[in-house]
């Protein structure tokens, strides 16, 4: 897992790729045991996090994460025969993150910028190498990463920043279109240049 994605992949190429990547977007799925005593604490913290806006921003501050979910799995669903019921020793934490790669840099960001959060969520597992440092954490993730399968994204050639930038540009354009209808040419040019200045970070 040491190659950096090729430019073809970034342009949305659809050559056969592992189930972890498409275009610019990567998917990391982990399914790791948590001690049952810890589950209520973790569940409560996650419930609280949903209602605190700061928590969402804290998670997303890196600007390269698009969709991320944590799911505490207490028991595996059972559908009757021929499925035998699975009784696991532990609860499991299902984690799926969709982000701009490569995954190693993603983990560096977590390890160096929000190590406490990482330790809080995964530290009560087993043999979890608490960051920092980042390298043992990456080895742990490589070991646990669920690979394979098929991955889909509705806009794989765009990164999180590109998406946000495009949305912001589209939002600002509405006002400019309205102005083009009511302003004289010289005034419009001023407005147009103001518009470009405000969205230049996205162009």
């Amino acid at each position, binding site marked *: 897992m040491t190659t950096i994605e090729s430019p073809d992949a970034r342009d949305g190429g659809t050559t056969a790729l592992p189930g972890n990547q498409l275009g610019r977007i990567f998917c990391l799925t982990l399914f790791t045991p948590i001690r049952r005593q810890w589950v209520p604490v973790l569940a409560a913290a996650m419930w609280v996090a949903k209602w605190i806006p700061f928590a969402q921003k804290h998670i997303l501050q890196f600007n390269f994460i698009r969709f991320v979910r944590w799911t505490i799995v207490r028991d595996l669903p059972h559908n009757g025969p021929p499925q035998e019921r699975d009784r696991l020793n532990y609860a499991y934490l299902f984690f799926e993150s969709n982000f701009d790669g490569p995954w190693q840099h993603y983990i560096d960001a977590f390890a160096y910028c929000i190590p406490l959060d990482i330790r809080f969520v995964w530290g009560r597992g087993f043999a979890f*190498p608490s960051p920092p440092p980042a390298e043992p954490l990456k080895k742990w993730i490589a070991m646990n990463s669920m690979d394979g399968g098929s991955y889909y994204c509705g806009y794989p050639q765009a990164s999180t920043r590109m998406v946000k*930038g495009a949305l912001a540009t589209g939002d600002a354009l509405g006002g400019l279109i309205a102005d083009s209808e009511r302003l004289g040419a010289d005034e419009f040019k001023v407005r147009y240049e103001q518009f470009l*200045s405000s969205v*230049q*970070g996205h*162009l």
Partner: protein
Amino acid sequence: MQKRRQAVGSGGERPLLQRRPLNLPRRHEEQSEVEAADIQGNVLRGYSHPMAAYIFLRIDDVVKGKALIDRMLPRITTGQPWCDTAPTTAIQVAFTYAGLQRLGVPDEMLATFPEEFREGMAARAESLGDRGPSAPEQWESGLGTGEAHVLVTVWAVDNEHLDAVREELRQVGASAGATTVINETRAEALKHGRDHFGFFDGISQPAVEGTGVQGRPGDGQPNGAGGWRDVATGEFVLGYVDEDGTLPDAPAEPFHRNGTFMVYRKLQQHTAAFRRSMEEQGARYPGGAEMLAAKVVGRWRDGTPLSTSPEAPDADVSADPLRINDFSYMDDPKGLKCPMGSHIRRCHPRDSEGFFGGRLTNRHRIIRRGRSYGPVLPKGAADDGQDRGLVFVCFNTSIWRQFETIQSLWLDDGDPFGVGPDKDPLIGCPADESGKMTIPGKPPFFLTPLPRFVTLRGGEYLFQPSMAALRWLADF
């Protein structure tokens, strides 16, 4: 059980539930000094010798090749500081993976070298952005084919000394049937430290811990308090603690210590095309041609950083080694002074937005030890078809994490800087001429078309062993 009792209230002890995980290696005590005599010379300190020859050898006979290495050993320059004056010549030697294989290094040992080194630069061209005229199929002969086994770099104070050593090497290698020279480039520093685009080059080099060389302000990494700190030795030399606080992954003994990985890229610069483009587009750019060129690079020609002086070059800054590299990007998140997509900001983002005060650039520094090659193109002259450019050489302990991150993610793409798929305007290799650079301003200026100004003529990934490892290679 011991730990449980100690845990609470012991100040500094790990909290109750956190036992040391079994797979977390213990941190090694930091080395207070580097073993300068065992590290080859030009890694931790640059040479001032203006002339250099980069000689790629193919090993024709393994036994004789090892004997040649053995004979060269006493001539190889180590990192020990020179007492009085610099020697008139210096020699370093490095090996490609193919070279180590050819010498007969056992498979189990070869397997401990990192993947990107084993694959070689040519195999990774796509992800590095080496496309079109820069693709391996177009490279100079001898590079990227697996034939290049050994790189001997010779430094000299003048041509006479350089020629003498080259001749010696050629004779010893060829007459004994040990090796054949398959590619060679001769380099000579241009006046005033300029490069072929007319810019003062090589200003920013990492300040490295333990070298005894004092870094200048701005050379290290931001220290979080508005100042600078040295970069961990292990980012550049194996066997020392790196920025992660652990020993970097290293190949097996004897290669595990005091060695480093080397990246060689011969970058041909299209001086006439660059000048023409800056003139033509500079005529449309409100700041003029010189400012346009500065926006592309991130510094004025004399080295003044745009971040320090965005309106004009400042001789007080460029003449002062303590100021020429002392700047931050924190007050310039929109790139109005130094564009996010400019060359130096891409190569070394420092504390740019998104890099968390430098915490996400710590592990992506490289030491550059290149030299310009080829004759100067006089100002105003038309393209003379001569080969000129930069022999780019850098050292790092992880080619993937350091060099390749810069090349593939920061130069061949722009998303980390919010500029999407835009490639580096100075050395990027666009697929066609539809590339552009957005130069922030009120309003912004779109620099397009953006022709290719640099072509890669060939490159290799190499391992530069310690003196101990070289002795082992000569003898095993």
